[in-house]
């Protein structure tokens, strides 16, 4: 039963004074479990729980995952929990990804990844040749291999040579009409059906895909970033980039509609100016722009040919705070059905 127990050390020799050492180790009772996602992925582990909590071998619990598929917990056996761990804590041993037919070790193998019984756990899987993937929270699957990061440069095509560097996440082997995200591909705005919704003026600039990394989780989908801006015609230097006109060059930007819609603020000295696929910047323009302190509240209207709204989309899972995801804000990748593109007709 649950409650306070007493340990008594008694000397049965009834002899004189003597010394003793006593060591005490407590291991909570634990239940082995398996959580299976609707797509066949699963992970196994154990949860510390008293005999009176309600778990038993054969216990099941159904949950609908983020893809709308039914997943379920099943208690498969009993075991002894890790010394010093507490009731309610959840440990994960292995994650199996059905899409890649591989098993992966979780990051938190030696530590609890949840503290409030089943469905409280969340963890990342790690493997040397893939990024880490978040799973858990009762329903997130690691979703290995479904999305890719596409590194790109966007080149203006007015002879200046200016470009900016960034990356966007989209489904692996993404293709829409004639548009194919592949290394070495130059992506112009027309006559691709991709931008045929009426928003196809990149001023003859183009995106150039420079690298692809596969195997990202679905929670990355529709995020994009700009990491640097190169002023080729005036200063011939890379400029710091931030996302909101603040004084600090965060060197990262989250676009609202990603490629073909992204906007960053290039920084030079105490000033900054906005750029996007339709309007480049250089150090001369930046120098003539408001200083950072005042510009942060009101970005210079003349620095971009069209205003680009900065919208903050839903955050990733709350537990995903130990990876770059914590800095990420969701946005959209190139979308054939973008409502924003329609608005720009």
């Amino acid at each position, binding site marked *: 039963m649950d409650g306070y*127990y007493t340990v008594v050390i008694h000397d049965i020799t009834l*002899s004189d004074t003597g010394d*003793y*050492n*006593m*060591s005490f180790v407590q291991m909570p009772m634990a239940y082995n479990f398996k959580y299976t996602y609707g797509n066949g992925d699963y992970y196994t582990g154990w949860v510390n729980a008293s005999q009176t909590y309600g778990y038993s071998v054969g216990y099941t619990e159904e949950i609908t995952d983020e893809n709308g598929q039914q997943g379920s917990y099943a208690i498969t056996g009993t075991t002894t929990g890790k010394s010093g761990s507490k009731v309610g804590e959840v440990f994960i041993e292995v994650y199996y990804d059905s899409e890649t037919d591989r098993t992966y070790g979780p990051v938190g193998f030696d530590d609890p990844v949840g503290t409030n019984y089943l469905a409280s756990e969340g963890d990342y899987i790690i493997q040397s040749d893939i990024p880490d993937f978040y799973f858990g929270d009762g329903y997130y699957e690691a979703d290995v291999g479904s999305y890719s990061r596409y590194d790109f440069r966007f080149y203006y095509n007015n002879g200046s040579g200016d470009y900016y560097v960034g990356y966007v996440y989209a489904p692996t082997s993404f293709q829409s009409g004639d548009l194919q995200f592949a290394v070495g591909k130059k992506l112009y705005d027309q006559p691709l059906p991709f931008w045929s919704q009426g928003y196809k003026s990149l001023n003859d600039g183009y995106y150039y895909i420079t690298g692809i990394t596969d195997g990202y989780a679905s929670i990355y989908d529709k995020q994009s970033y700009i990491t640097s801006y190169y002023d080729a015609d005036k200063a011939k230097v890379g400029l710091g980039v931030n996302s909101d006109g603040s004084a600090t060059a965060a060197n990262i930007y989250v676009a609202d509609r990603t490629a073909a819609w992204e906007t960053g603020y290039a920084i030079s000295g105490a000033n900054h100016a906005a750029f996007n696929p339709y309007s480049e910047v250089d150090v001369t323009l930046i120098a003539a722009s408001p200083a950072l302190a005042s510009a942060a509240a009101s970005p210079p209207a003349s620095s971009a040919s069209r205003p680009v709204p900065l919208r903050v989309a839903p955050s990733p899972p709350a537990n995903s705070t130990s990876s770059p995801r914590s800095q990420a804000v969701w946005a959209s990748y190139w979308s054939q059905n973008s409502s924003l593109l329609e608005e720009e007709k």
Partner: protein
Amino acid sequence: MNRKLTYFLCIVLAGNFLVSAWAADRGAITSGQTVSYSIDGAGISDSYQFYGHAGDGVVITANASSGYLDPVIYLYTASGTLEAHTA
């Protein structure tokens, strides 16, 4: 003499014994802790408390470090019921 008690806290109770009235209360003990004390004179015992859940496992080891003690380990519930003991 070295004594080791390995036990899983059960809902089913064993026979009834009383905690020694002579036991000196040494307070709470937590998992991973090792303590050293003296037992001073015949018939004197030491007692420790911990909170356990049904089904928990405990491993308690006691050994004499000086003198001629032969420590025996008893485990009692809050109601004074003996759950387990070493020989």
